[in-house]
């Protein structure tokens, strides 16, 4: 099938790739741009391991086509840290041992960052519902929720 040329921006970098119209944004990020931080856990938008933001909106990159990324601003887990300075969420995830295997962690981080940008003071319930689209099979979510809420508190104090 004929491939399409796509020009887009990922984590602030201008990038371009050729893709089959059937390939997802996740396929393009991973296989064409070597950004393997986003993971495919289901391919049906149920697990959230492929979460990225597109023009600031949280999406499952497995549910969006690569060709639809034309002209968009995409942010992935690889863009969360500021150079070698980790985002407070990244630090807290490590401190709280809020990951065991770590496969869901990139998606959790992208989704949690998106939550805190919209709501800097989420309740436990709001945090649980926002992250309900990100499956974690290892932790039972306890330490993840605590890490996100503690980050929110710390970021509120710092601002």
């Amino acid at each position, binding site marked *: 099938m004929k491939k399409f040329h796509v020009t887009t921006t990922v984590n602030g970098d201008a990038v371009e790739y050729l893709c089959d119209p059937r390939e997802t944004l996740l396929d393009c990020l991973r296989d064409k741009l070597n950004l393997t931080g986003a993971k495919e856990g*289901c391919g049906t938008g149920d697990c959230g391991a492929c979460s990225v933001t597109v023009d600031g909106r949280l999406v499952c990159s497995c549910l969006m086509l690569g060709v639809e990324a034309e002209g968009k601003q995409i942010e992935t887990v690889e863009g969360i840290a500021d150079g070698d300075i980790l985002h407070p969420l990244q630090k807290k995830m490590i401190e709280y041992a809020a990951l*065991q295997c770590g496969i869901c962690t990139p998606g959790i981080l992208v989704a949690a960052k998106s939550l805190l940008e919209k709501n800097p003071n989420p309740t436990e319930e709001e945090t649980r519902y926002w992250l309900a689209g990100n499956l974690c099979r290892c932790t039972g979510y306890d330490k993840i929720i605590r890490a996100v809420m503690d980050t929110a508190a710390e970021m509120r104090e710092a601002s």
Partner: protein
Amino acid sequence: MALDDRKSDFTFVGTRPNRPDGLDKVTGRAKFGADAYAPGMLHGAILRSPHAHARIVKIDASKAEAHKDVKAVVTRADFADVPFKPGLEGEFYNVLENVMAGEKALYDGHAVAAVAATSALAARDALKLIEVEYEVLPHVTDVDKAMAPDAPVIREGAADYSVPEGMHPNVVRYHESGHGDLEAGFAEADLIIEDSFVTEATHQGYIEPHACLAILGNDGKGELWCTTQGHWIAQKTCAALLGIETSQLRVTASEIGGGFGGKTTVFIEPVALALSRKANRPVKLVMTRSEVFRATGPTSSASMDVKIGMKKDGTISAAQGIFRLQGGAFPGAPGDMTAMCAFAPYNLTNVKQIGYDVMANRPKQAAYRAPGAPMGAFAVESVIDELCNKLGLDPVEVRLKNAAHEGTKASYGPTYERIGLVETLEAAKAHPHYSAPLKPGQGRGISCGFWFNHGGETSVSLALSEDGSAQVMVGTPDIGGSRASMALMAAEVLGIPYENIRVTIADTATLGYNDVSHGSRVTYASGLATIKAARHAVEKLCERAAAKWGIPVDAVKWENGCAVPSGPNAGDFDPMPLADITADMGRTGGPISGHFEATPEGAGVSFGTHIVDAEVDPETGKTSVTRYTVIQDAGKAIHPTYVEGQYQGGAAQGIGWALNEEYIYGEDGRLQNSIFLDYRIPVASDLPMIDTVIVEVPNPGHPFGVRGVGETGIVPPLAAIANAVSNAAGVRMKRLPMSPPRILAALKDNG
């Protein structure tokens, strides 16, 4: 038992440092199974049977082979001729038959052919060009139906010596154990309850699908990168299935995105190797989620009958259980484990348990966290709860009264060494959760749980660097932070900071054989081996210091990271730090390393007690878990935060199993819910915080007292939640999952 060399005061062990792979995991840098690429790489895809049971009459792959994008097609003919043997003796045959069907497709999703093509899309498209002619056969997916006289036979001759005569050929293994006089025991009882219970198959549900990158040449030399709980078993199995020498295949374990027992065997790895050998190029193969559900190893489904007699004072006078486990179209369902674990928490005079391993037209079951134990605990602990209710007894007191302790003859035979069940029950009784008032509509459930824990073949190497840092090579893939635990234990022995130790999961070419990361064995066995390897290095450090000081080596001891003179005639020398000894080790005798290889036997059994509050909505049948407390014996918690994580994760998986998760098969024998939307595992908004209490009753079989903690945590939840739900709803729930329709039906039946 002598505990002379067991340490009890610690510097590093018991602290909670950041895990060494934390940065990689939060930045997206960690490389998991699907994150590997190779020059010239092809993409594989597998064609799967749409039938639950069918003879494969003919496979015509000529159109696929002729396509320009396709570089190889493989079928069963491209694998080695592995001999069939009954039961688990022929496990290589069973695995081969599972990864690529032979004469028959045995379940919906069974692999029948595979292709390698120039892109993932081309590979998927090429599958449509392969024509398979099937002769559809009668099928059976239910365990009780699979044992019935008229059930279709999955495979003649698969039963081993243990199966009594006259059973259906689908019954392939049989277990019976116990002691005492059941009849006399039941005669002593004031109340006897006998009931039947059913659990459905569930999947481990790891978020990372199976993925690998394989390279195999016609010279029989290969490289395999894969997500696995054990790369040596992958090496051994793949070599056998491909007909190559084990040592010629080097296997590297990727970071692993969850396993819970499901990645202790191979599925796609031998197929990728066969494709690579045929195409003479690297082949990457990644499963879709639907393939994971249809064609990897879920847990067994179970049908169980339990009968328990109790005296008015709560003493269990006799107990009997029959456990029938369905494990897919191959031998291996852990009916024996279910039977052995079911009554293991209790000190029983009269007990008997029987377990059946039954085949059906479903995927080959794989281990899932304490395989077999949760189902049996559900049945047994439900009956105990019902006895407590009927006799008006406190469920924790009754369990304390009957609890096994050091010296108890276990229901499955051996006599327990020091164990911590009583301590977990005492902690439950004292916990504020147990005495907290319940709201209307809520119920509270209690359950105990047992798991054996495992030692297994283990090798560890440790090497010191000139600058005084250390590298530790272990062979057990790190599923939940074990590199942190290994570094803590090495730091404890060497006396150097945690941060100065780097732990690597070695590949199969750089370390001796290691059993899989399963059986809750990693912190126990790889930990023990790390400690002993570090002690081996310390012996050499002491020798070097002795030589420098010119004193006998037995006049040197190791303290806080330094060699120090010890004893009246040792002389007066300043402590010599590790880095001072390693700085010139090349000139004082050569590199300093430590090694340890063994099959440690002292894993130390493990017990836990869970307390659950649940609320049932009588309108919708929906259950909410409102409070959850896990209490479990860890022996010694090396990194307490990760121990808590294991407890919480086990409880969460148990909640899913109890309330929601199940394999649903249609009349046609096809799996109806093979995506996460339909097979719904607990999400963040389904769960409460999960409180944990770490009890520490040291294991005599480990230098620091460690007991494995990974698996026991999934044993009590099924029963604890069922007891909470039954108490909330006022009706005994005997079938899992307790989904809203089942709860509504139970409420309706109860009037």
